[in-house]
């Protein structure tokens, strides 16, 4: 995971090699750390943090490393430091399951409190955590409308215009010289955007998967793939998978 190494080592020193895009006419920058910066609105969007995923699995007998929450929060710290947004929007599945936010160790709670100081924090509710984030700074809600954009967890079928959603963990694959490279990506056709999952132990769903059919105008769909220190933008037609 290049993001973690990159964020913890060099985030503040490096210039952000983001990719400029537009959603429903609003300018945004896809940051290779996995967040979307909307400078005109002073907003930073992240999605699918899946905090406390390790411990959720451990409760069911799979002892995944208990370091995923810390790692995700470190990258979040780095990207917030980089853009210093007025508003942070976390697009749902903030915690891996319902009990996640109440069982989270105090040190992580404190990290989030520090990050939220001096800015507004919106927790959009997801399917993994429909009850909202408990005892954390910020506001929980299902949908947020801001300017000409709509922020929700699951992409809607009928109203793509200006929608920024998560839930699907889009990833894209390219093949060059018989080698396959698969990366998480921002997926947008200019009308709506589906965000990559921000959490460090979250897998991806291929953009060509049937769960994503019908959501985009495919001729205009571009995968902005997360590289080591920059975004690689590849049109849908050039992907495989």
């Amino acid at each position, binding site marked *: *995971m290049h993001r973690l190494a990159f964020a913890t080592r060099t985030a503040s020193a490096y210039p952000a090699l983001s990719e400029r895009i537009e959603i429903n006419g609003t300018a945004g920058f896809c940051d290779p750390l996995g967040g979307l910066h909307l400078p005109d609105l002073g907003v930073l969007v992240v999605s699918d943090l899946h905090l406390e995923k390790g411990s959720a699995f451990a409760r069911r007998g799979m002892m*995944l*490393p*208990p370091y995923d929450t810390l790692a995700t929060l470190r990258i979040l710290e780095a990207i917030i430091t980089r853009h210093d947004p007025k508003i942070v929007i976390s697009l749902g599945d903030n915690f891996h399951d319902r009990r996640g936010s109440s069982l989270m160790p105090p040190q992580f709670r404190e990290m989030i409190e520090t990050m939220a100081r001096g800015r507004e924090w919106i927790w959009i509710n997801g399917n993994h955590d429909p009850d909202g984030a408990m005892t954390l700074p910020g506001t929980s809600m299902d949908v947020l409308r801001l300017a000409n954009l709509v922020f929700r967890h699951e992409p809607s079928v009928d109203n793509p215009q200006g929608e920024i959603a998560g839930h699907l963990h889009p990833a894209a694959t390219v093949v060059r010289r018989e080698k396959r*490279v698969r990366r998480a990506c921002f997926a947008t056709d200019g009308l709506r955007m589906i965000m990559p999952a921000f959490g460090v*132990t979250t897998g991806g*769903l291929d953009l060509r998967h049937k769960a994503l059919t019908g959501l985009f105008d495919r001729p205009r769909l571009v995968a902005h793939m997360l590289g080591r220190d920059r975004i690689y933008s590849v049109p849908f037609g050039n992907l*495989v998978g």
Partner: protein
Amino acid sequence: MNQIDPARAAQSPIALPAPFLRWFAEKGWRPRAHQLDLLSRVQGGESMLLIAPTGAGKTLAGFLPSLVSLTERGKIPPGSAFSGIHTLYISPLKALAVDIERNLMKPVTEMGLPVRIENRTGDTPQAKRQRQKLNPPDILLTTPEQLALLLANGEAERFFKDLKYVVFDELHSLVTSKRGHLLSLGLSRLRRLAPSMQTIGLSATVADPMDLQRWLVAQVPDEDRHAGLITVTGGAKPEISILRTEERVPWSGHQAAYAMPAVYEAIRDTKTTLLFVNTRSQAERLFQELWTINDDNLPIALHHGSLDVGQRRRVEAAMAENKLRAVVATSTLDLGIDWGDVDMVIHVGAPKGASRLAQRIGRANHRMDEPSRAILVPANRFEVMECQAALDANYLGAQDTPPVGRGALDVLAQHVLGMACAAPFDPLELYAEIISASPYADLSWETFERIVDFVATGGYALRTYERYAKIRKTADGLWRVSNPQIAQQYRLNIGTIIESPMLNVRMVKRNARGSIGRGGMSLGKVEEYFLEMLSPGDTFLFSGKVLRFEGIRENECLVSQGYTLDPKVPSYAGGKFPLSTYLAAQVRKMLADPNHHATLPEQVRDWLSLQKDFSRLPKEDELLIETFPHGKRHFMVSYAFEGRLAHQTLGMLLTRRLDRAGLKPLGFVATDYSLAIWGLEDMGVAFKKGKPSLGALFDEDMLGDDLEAWLNESFLLKRTFRNCAVIAGLIEQRHPGKEKSGRQVTVSADLIYDVLRSHEPDHILLEATRNDAATGLLDIGRLGDMLMRIKSHIRHQQLDRVSPLAVPIMLEIGRETVAGEAQDILLAEAADELMNEIKAGH
């Protein structure tokens, strides 16, 4: 050594009961000396290893002590107290267990022995398994995985309490893998459940029999304990030749297309031929090539592990009935399934190891006293030398089977959980039991404790999972499973064979409008990652057919008939053996000694003498390095002869160092024989100036920090980690076909690896991963030995152009690039295409 019962040892060596003597007499046979020898030594209380060539009556020898003992015991009267199994037979293959049942039942029925024999494999129905537990057979034929399942059961103690003998078939192939490690741990538990049990190992010839002899008995610190050994030599020497044709032997490649007419001719002149290759993709190609020239329509079949089971069984049956003239096969047929008369073995491509060649040749002709016939077909000029070395080795009887190796830690974790599932365990007792298994004899108490901790809570320094522990130490000092679901989960994930996700390949029809029809015949399975590189319309070679990829529907890959002559070939992971150390040394010797060149074909002789005049032939213990310009690049070729894996690791490490020295290396390619690195700067000039010197460049210290730094970002290590994590029970194996969405992974091993490495680099599972990689994919051990060997024996030749010896590897360039680290470069290429399109559009 086992204790010997003096009373039994004193008995006459021929102690066969009457039904046996009668049976041998009726058949007009006599028991062979080694069969009686084995019987009497086992009866004397020893555990034994029997090494014998194919066709020597090994199987009967292995079962003779059991059959005699069971005959003496007689039938158990109905209504007697429960009696557990008497003999356990373990084979590496399900098919072999089934085959042996058939072969063993024949004499048992003919002699009228009161013996019940049954097999138990993954295919055995649930009802039969239940019955076997309630009413065990006398002899149970099974596989290592089934043994592990039986041992993790609460009734194991009862089931195995009467066990007298354990027979291990094809022991040489079992012991060197993780399966062998798991089996050795299972054996250590069997010894505790049935302390007087004896083992009998059956094996082909190996380099170091003592390794296996120790494996068979309980190890005691500072004592030499090993089973007895009976070696059956003899059998006629095989008649091996190297294919000579008038055709030009190519410089590189692995297909041997030049030799096809000659190979076809040999098939036509022989009754039944078995053709061996090293990989499944080679098998597909060879099969295709033979059918293109099969003017006589000879029945030639294809057999490899990815094909549909039904299809494989049909080939096996046709072969047993002598209906086929030839079968193209991979290592799936290495092991001793008896399937009819084979008159000749043709090995296409070099066999890569002397013992492997011997075992494959053994497949021709199961009658021990007639010589086997074999032809080796080298695919390129280096392979000519390799084939010659293998042929010499076979004549001398030299062996190069790998050593048993140290027990893997992920396997140990699986076993510890299994033992907790069977019954609460005392850690001291379990530790003592485990170090009695030879692969784990050196296991430290501290490591054992870390493994127990890993099984319980993941073994993390951040102790947050205590409340979720899978096993817990209770007040009586015993460890027990926290709840019954843990045992259930364990049973579903047992085993050490991790398959990469595969999809079923199904043939469909396309109608006139181009839409895809209903599903037809299933052809077998192909790796998911290969399919992900295909777009609909691409063609590839599989199951001997050219197929057109139509798409993926649920868990199946749909294909239709393809009509093209230039299909892609699945490049399967694995199955590509590196050149054995022994053969490598022989090839080096051959190269260095001009007297040896006389045995080689003229084409190869000419090539070597050109090399001698133009540059230099490396001496036996010397590392020859050539530097030369070619095109716009500067090249450095090292002739290390240590196998592809070790060369690949060396390439990774050298490019790092060259990069640091400012020599701007761009890429490298590795073969079994040499390594080529290319870059923008003239490396030869830099070496002459000592910036850096070759001695410094090849210093053993590259295995320190450079290796560590590279490993940390290497994709190879991630693949190894995934296997370790599954075997150790950290993540569950994807069960192809059983997943909901088929291609959606809930937990990605790669992501877990990254998180673990950055937060707890000393974690026990990372240690297990590094140990594995060192012996497996990276072959660091071999690289280390080589660096030591060539120290101050490096010979640099600075040339103005490509040397004859460098030609083969120069032809490989372009087929591979630096993997892993180059990923972002490929992404950039894909993104730049967009840029170019945009520019073109304006």
